[in-house]
């Protein structure tokens, strides 16, 4: 029997496509954000509201990832923004080769910012670089305030944390969610993470988030 040292990255092929995507986007000065959360945190609602609030300021395109259906892309197209739907047919995350294909179908030249809405899953998408500039993690208050402690990887690797559905905290709904605890837990893992408490439904907090996006898109 012989032992052979290999020392090769296993997700090499994904990383190669991710690098191509980064190069393509950076040559054209486009900002690309990879949005990751559990199912039902409100990613698509946040995107639709963000697109409406930024209409006339920055142009946004969206790549939607879901296991089935093009319901999300339809919701984005209703805002007049271009959207490409990827169906993963069971896979729990998007991979860089799928993004490479979707980018070729988006009118990139006309856009300032490309959002990737990953498959709803707080775990697996974290491991796959897609060629984004940064990851944005979304946590809704209904999911509970223990998520940064339970799922540290995505909070450690994200540049922005959106805490959505904060309108529920003052609605009289019976929700135990300590906003300060989540902020402290997230910052313990990631000192520089930007945190925006928002409600995509009422619009609360959306201005700060949108201003951050304008700033980030002009600095690319």
């Amino acid at each position, binding site marked *: 029997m012989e032992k052979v040292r290999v020392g090769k990255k296993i997700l090499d092929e994904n990383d190669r496509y991710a690098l191509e995507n980064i190069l393509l986007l950076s040559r054209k000065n486009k900002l690309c954000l990879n949005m990751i959360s559990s199912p039902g945190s409100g990613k698509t609602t946040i995107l639709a509201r963000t697109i409406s609030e930024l209409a006339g300021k920055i142009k946004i395109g969206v790549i939607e990832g879901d296991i089935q259906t093009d319901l999300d892309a339809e919701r984005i197209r209703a805002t007049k923004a271009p959207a490409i739907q990827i169906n993963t047919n069971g896979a729990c995350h998007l991979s860089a080769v799928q993004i490479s294909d979707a980018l070729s179908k988006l009118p990139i030249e006309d856009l300032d910012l490309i959002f990737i809405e990953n498959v709803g899953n707080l775990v697996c998408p974290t*491991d796959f670089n897609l060629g984004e500039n940064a990851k944005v993690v979304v946590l809704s208050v209904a999911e509970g305030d223990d998520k940064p402690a339970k799922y540290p990887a995505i909070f450690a690797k994200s540049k922005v944390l959106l805490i959505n559905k904060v309108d529920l905290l003052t609605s009289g709904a019976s929700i135990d969610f300590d906003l300060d605890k989540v902020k402290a837990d997230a910052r313990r893992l990631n000192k520089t993470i930007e945190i925006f408490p928002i409600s995509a439904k009422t619009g609360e907090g959306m201005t700060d988030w949108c201003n951050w996006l304008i700033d980030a898109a002009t600095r690319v």
Partner: protein
Amino acid sequence: MHEMMVAESLLKTISAEASRRNARPIGATISCGTLNAVNDETLRFAFDAIAKGTPCEDMRLQIEHKPTQGKCRKCDRDFEIEFSQPKCTDCGSEDFALLPDAPLMLEEIELETD
């Protein structure tokens, strides 16, 4: 179940290395950082499923998890992060930078030649 993609990539690399050396793979060691969401049982299950009928069938997979390191901003030491209580193991400071997690790597293959 993203372990399936990891398993596919693994199978491809091991098969190529083995056939280049005209040998049969019997075991492999892979490593990854603790922030990589790789579950050992799921990865073995996925690998066994796709390796059926290939030269990689019945291979042993050894999976090593490398602890994630932090660099303390107060005492400047590197330390292993315990995620249930993330703080410097030397001075107890919670002010630290997370160092890059170890990537998923195929470290070693055990080969058998006839």
